[in-house]
Structures are given as C-alpha cells and as structure tokens.
C-alpha cells in the first residue's frame, strides 16, 4: 500500500462562495478541483482521502442504482448518517436522482438498542421514505425499525455492489426541496425540516462570506451528520464552498476527544472547526496538567474555533484557553454563532477576530420575574452571537409580534432566503412558526448595535452535553408509568450553581403515603434516566399545583418560575 495523502488545502480551481442554483451543481463544480473529504481513524490518522471528483462519480452511480430500483423524484430516502464515504455518496446520489435524502441518527452509548429502534421508527413514520439505508453493521436494529414501518431496508455495502446502469437524471429546480432534516423537534414528536436548494445554497454562501474563507483554510469536524451543524455546516458547506475537510467519527471523538486537536495540529493550512460547548469542555478536562500541550499540539493554525449548537459558556471557553494557550491557541479565534435547522443553519456569526464578548444582564430581566427587594441582584453573562449573516434580517418582537427597541429582550424572529419551506406534512406546526415570511425562532434575545445576544430558549428545549432533550419526551416517558396522565408532569431545565444545565421534572402526585412517594420518585428517576441518559432533579408536588395557560395547557415556563421562586413547594421525601 502506498502512503495516502489528504486532499490539498489549496487548489487552482477558482473559489466560488456557493453561488449555485442546485446542490448537484455545487458538487459538479467542486469535482473539477483537487479538494475533498478526508476520513480519519479513531486515533486521528488518515484512513481515506475522498476527493470531490471521486465522490461525484460514486454519487452519480448511486443515483443510477436508485433510479433502477424505482426511486422517483421527491421520494424520501432515509439514510443512517454514519460519517464516511458511503453516506456522502448516497446523500448526493439521492440529490442527483431528485429524491430527498433524510439523515437519521446513529445509536449512542451502552444499552441503547430498544430506544434506538424506537427513535428510527418514529422518524421513519414521519418522513414516510421509500428506502432506509444503513451500514451493514447496524443491519439488525435498522431492519427492525424498517420492518415495523413497512419500509424497505437495504445496507449500503450490498447496494453499492449492484450494477449502475446509466440513465437520464431528472432536472432539478432551485426552488424544489433538497433534503429533510430531523434535528429539530423532539424524538417523540419529530419535525422534518424541508429545505430547498436555493435556501440551502444561500445559507452556505453566508457561511463563507461570514467566516471570510481564505485560500489556505480547511475544515476539521467530528460533528454528527444527523445534526444540522454537522450536516449543513461541516459537510454540505465544504462541498458548496470547495473546502477540503478532515473528519473524525463522533463516537471516536467521544472516546478520545484529544484526537480532534491532533487532527487540527496536523492540518496543512489554517483551520475552521466548530464544536458545542461540551467539546471544548471535555478537551480542557481531559488534557492532564502534566502534559506539555505544546509538545503534542499546534493550535496556532486554528483560525476559527466556532461556538454554537448550545448555550456558549464563557467560563468553559476560558478554561480551554488556559489549557491550550501554550499550544498556540488564541482566544480571538473563538467564533460565536447562532442558528437553527429552520433557517437551514446560520442566523448570525461573530465577525472573525472579535472572539467571545459578554454582557452582564440582571437575572430578573431574563426570567421576567421580579426579584425580591431584599435579595442581592444576580447577573448572568450573555454571549454576543455576532451579526446577522448575509441576506438574513433579525428582529426582536414582543408577544404581539410588535418589534422591540434595541437592548430589549423579546422573541427572536428572522427572515431571509434561507428559511425552511415547511415542516414536512405538518401544516399546523409550520403555520405556528412561519408567519408572513418571518420565522419565530422560539428563542429569546436582544439586539445591541447590530449584534444579537441569545438569552434563552422559549421553546423549552434542554441541551446537555450537546444533546437536545425535549420536555415533551421526558413528560411522555413519565406518563407511561401507571397512575399518571398528561398534564401531571412538567419538565424544564434549571441552571445549577456551577452554571450547568440540568433537567428538572415536577410530577403531581396523589399519594399521601411517604414510603410510597419515595418509591414513586425512584421509578420516575429511572424512567427519566432511560430517556435522558442522566440523573435529573425529580420533585413530587401536590395535585393541581402545575400552572395552566389560558387555553388549559400546562405551562412549563410558568411552572419553572413558580418552582424557582419557591411558590411550588415539593413534598419532602426522606432519602
């Protein structure tokens, strides 16, 4: 075997900032150059270089196989999103065949078999695909899910062995749907975000403009391809902006996070690499104080260290700078950003070089809950998430959709060409957030001199270690226990004194027997752990204490406020 080399950083092909009409056209162009994707093994060594030219050829063959198999324009094709050439070729194969690829998640952690099959099944039912593709390794679980949903299941190894007989490919229009994305919405009640070619390519061009991509940049990523930041930001964006990219699998990163920094250190060029807060956190924690970080790492080349996908924590970022400053890491490389699947991805990006900037805001302003006059004033550090990206407009509005003045906290709305078209087959949810060409992001924030500050999520989502937990899913799980019904349970996130988020679950309980209550709480704790993978704050509260909205729905936001202010008193339970 000859020594393999990565695809080059620089190339004579003139760079185009994603100014294409369709995604297929974007790959056609990238394939004219030398750049491409590079897959690394668990220790960060190059395993496979995959130039865009090769990827395009594989994708076209996949498109021919799909068409021979009966796939037609606008069919959904579900793909288990394992980071590797197979998924990449199939994703673009679907695009060339006019079908919509739908990336689905991988299993994580120990003992997740049942919940994984369940999760796949729920998403398959939502997107109603013609085929589910998966790596052969996952055949058993994936086939279980496919069978349960009457979907044909095929492992991609055997599909690749089929003969590809050339046929005519359907033409694609720029305003047609390109793919469905399931990273938004809860596990139990999923939302397939439908994105058009035009919306996608517009947002991808905003990335390279916003990050001021240079000829010497490469991308390094371990983010999963079933999340918007991994898929759109670190797979589709490099293709449409012709950037060579180095990948690690997410599971390999989770086991050996420092290999991420090894890959960056070895990169030939300057590096753009993104991570949610927890990625920086585990690297800073994992590197032992004895190690001379400068012996192993060279992070001076890390031009943009992107922050996003969860609340950015300045203390964690400082710890990362403290741990890796000697290896050349510069705090000014941090690049806060804000986005969501409903806008394709990016809404705002910090101008490169400005780093992390925070403003202190009074806690009472953030919760909308007046503090007691005799209590000390508490402040929270809010991170500046940058300026609206190219073609995007941000507005802060009140409950009645009236725009608010600068530095006033309200709901974050935005508009621009990169908004999603709809939630697939869910008009009601679409109408709830897309109004007159504007998107209600569901997040809370304020604008200050053209910069957006995100203070929290009105949508109730709880993000821990980069993983999104939806209160609906937690509440649903508890409802499955005997004796509980919808409306008895409120799940929301609380911030621990250490600044970390943790889910809290309030459960209305009718039992007066104390021993019975203790048992009940243990049952609930186990159930909640089975969906979140972690221990949560579980409180039993008296019947009829959870507040309702005017329409009779249980209000999580109100429940959270009442709980934090001490107005909801949980039962004391002896350990």
């Amino acid at each position, binding site marked *: 075997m000859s020594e393999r080399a990565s695809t080059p950083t620089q190339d004579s092909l003139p760079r185009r900032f994603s100014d294409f009409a369709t995604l297929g056209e974007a790959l056609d162009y990238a394939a004219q150059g030398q750049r491409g994707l590079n897959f690394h093994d668990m220790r960060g060594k190059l395993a496979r270089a995959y130039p865009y030219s090769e990827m395009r050829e594989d994708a076209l063959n996949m498109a021919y196989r799909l068409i021979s198999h009966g796939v037609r324009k606008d069919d959904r094709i579900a793909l288990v999103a394992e980071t590797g050439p197979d998924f990449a070729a199939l994703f673009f194969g679907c695009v060339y065949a006019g079908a919509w690829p739908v990336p689905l998640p991988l299993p994580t952690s*120990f003992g*997740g*078999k049942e919940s*994984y099959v369940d999760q796949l099944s729920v998403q398959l039912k939502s997107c109603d695909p013609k085929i589910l593709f998966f790596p052969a390794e996952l055949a*058993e679980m994936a086939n279980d899910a496919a069978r349960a949903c009457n979907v044909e299941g095929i492992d991609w190894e055997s599909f690749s062995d089929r003969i590809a007989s050339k046929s005519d490919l359907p033409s694609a229009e720029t305003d047609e749907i390109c793919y469905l994305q399931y990273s938004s919405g809860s596990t139990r009640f999923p939302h397939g975000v439908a994105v058009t070619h035009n919306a996608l390519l517009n947002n991808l061009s905003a990335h390279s403009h916003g990050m001021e991509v240079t000829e010497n940049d490469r991308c390094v990523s371990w983010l999963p391809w079933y999340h918007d930041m991994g898929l759109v930001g670190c797979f589709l964006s490099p293709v449409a902006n012709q950037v060579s990219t180095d990948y690690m699998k997410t599971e390999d990163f*989770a086991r050996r996070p420092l290999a991420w920094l090894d890959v960056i250190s070895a990169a030939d060029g300057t590096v753009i690499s993104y991570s949610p807060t927890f990625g920086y956190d*585990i690297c800073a924690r994992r590197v032992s104080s004895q190690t001379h970080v400068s012996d192993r790492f060279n992070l001076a080349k890390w031009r943009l260290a992107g922050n996003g996908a969860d609340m950015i924590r300045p203390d964690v970022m400082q710890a990362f700078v403290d741990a890796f400053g000697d290896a050349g890491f510069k705090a000014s490389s941090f690049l806060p950003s804000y986005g969501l699947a409903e806008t394709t991805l990016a809404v705002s990006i910090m101008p490169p070089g400005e780093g992390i900037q925070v403003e202190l805001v009074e806690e009472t302003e953030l919760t909308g809950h007046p503090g007691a006059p005799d209590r000390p004033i508490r402040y929270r550090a809010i991170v500046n998430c940058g300026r609206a990206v190219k073609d995007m407009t941000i507005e802060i509005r009140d409950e009645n959709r009236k725009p608010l003045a600068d530095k006033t906290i309200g709901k974050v709305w935005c508009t621009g060409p990169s908004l999603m078209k709809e939630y697939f087959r869910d008009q009601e949810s679409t109408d709830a957030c897309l109004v007159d060409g504007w998107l209600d992001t569901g997040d809370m924030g304020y604008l200050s001199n053209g910069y957006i500050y995100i203070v929290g999520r009105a949508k109730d989502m709880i993000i821990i270690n980069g993983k999104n937990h939806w209160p609906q899913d937690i509440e649903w799980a508890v409802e499955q226990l005997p004796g509980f019904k919808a409306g008895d349970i409120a799940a929301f996130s609380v911030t621990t004194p250490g600044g970390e988020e943790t889910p809290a679950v309030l459960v209305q309980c009718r039992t007066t027997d104390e021993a019975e209550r203790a048992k009940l709480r243990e049952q609930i704790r186990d159930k909640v752990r089975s969906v979140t993978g972690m221990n949560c704050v579980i409180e039993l509260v008296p019947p009829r204490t959870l507040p309702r909205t005017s329409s009779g729905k249980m209000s999580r936001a109100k429940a959270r406020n009442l709980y934090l202010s001490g107005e909801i008193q949980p039962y004391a339970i002896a350990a």
Partner: protein
Amino acid sequence: MTDRSEMFDRLKGLIEPFNKKGVEVGETTTFAGDLEWDSLTVMDFVAEVEDSFDIIISMNLQAEIENVGQLVDAVTKLTAA
C-alpha cells in the same frame, strides 16, 4: 471459569476510577441504572477498555451491552478472536 473471573476482575478494575458513587460492582450491575453513567462517561470508559485490551467495541455491540456481565462476555469474545 477462572478465565471469566479474571476478565471480570480486570474490567472491575477499569470500572473503579469511574465508579464515583462507590457502587458494589457485580455481574448484573448496569451502567446506566446502577453506576449512573451518562453517555460521555460511557465513551470515556469504552476508550479505556479498548486501549487496555487492544480491541474495538462497535456501535452495534455497545447497544447490546447493559450490564457488567454482558461486557465481560463481549470483551472475552473480542479478545479470543
């Protein structure tokens, strides 16, 4: 039988640094329920096991492992191969 108990002891030794709650570790001890590990702790631990035995525990296999006894079986099988 001694092979199995040796393997159990070695894995128990690897579990200990992660066993922050001092849970008594037996064959039926579960990682999520009894040891209360979150997914990041599990991955950190998997890396330890893989490095110690020079094996790779696949995603598929991981999904089937819920307790210590199942891990002992899985590692025994992988090291025998």
